[in-house]
């Protein structure tokens, strides 16, 4: 099983690179998860991450990309620029929430 080293602690990751224990998520962990995807987090990334985490806290599921654009107000094009090469899982992985279950 893959692990992610954050501040001297090895966190367990599943086959898709998601945290096995979501309680281990922190801003530092998000930075490291993003680094693994060659993303360096900007304020705009944090807006997306905070929206996703808030959604998850309220609804116990990750928002689909469409909800991030429609409700979170991040345009589709920008979302693909912020999280290139497959934002579908990447956004949730970095935000430390489960894989999104919707189709759009």
């Amino acid at each position, binding site marked *: 099983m893959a692990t992610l080293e954050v501040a001297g602690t090895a966190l367990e990751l599943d086959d898709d690179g998601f945290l096995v224990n979501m309680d281990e998520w922190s801003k530092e962990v998000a930075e490291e998860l993003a680094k693994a995807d060659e993303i360096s987090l900007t304020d705009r990334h944090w807006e997306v991450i905070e929206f996703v985490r808030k959604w998850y806290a309220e609804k116990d599921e990750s928002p689909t990309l469409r909800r991030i654009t429609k409700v979170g107000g991040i345009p589709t094009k920008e979302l693909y620029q912020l999280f290139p090469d*497959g934002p579908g899982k*990447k956004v949730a992985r970095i935000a430390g929430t489960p894989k999104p279950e919707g189709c759009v």
Partner: protein
Amino acid sequence: MSETKSTRKIAIICSKGTLDMAYPGLVLANAARQAGIDAVLFFTFWGLDIVTKKKNSKIKVTPVGNPAMGMPNLVGIIPGMTTMATSMMKKKIEGLDIPPIDEFIEMIHDAGVKLYGCRMSVDMMGLTEDDLVPQLEGVITAMDFMDISEGAQTIFV
């Protein structure tokens, strides 16, 4: 990570102009982009309605000849049945937070799907590029499609 820098590519040929056959191609192309996979959509024959401005908000589903919809054909031919079935399906789709076709096309275009119209179908239906949605990369021939679908997994809908 498993899905980064994918070299996979998918090409979907949309040939039907009914609601139930319009969505699968759009949903799959969108899913491909969400997973970091290149996607090309080619609209041919009745599938061209999906990208025709005057038609894509009026695409319908008919219960006639479609046993999956559970309505006897004789009932399905009653005037208004197609409209009713269409409005029911559209409501279900909306309830799942899936956008209507025109908005869906905008969304997948922004997501990086490349959309093309079929030259022969455009000519056959007497359309010009002005009749088609602005998100199309262009109107191309079957042979052009061979070029743009090179190396792609191709799906015919």
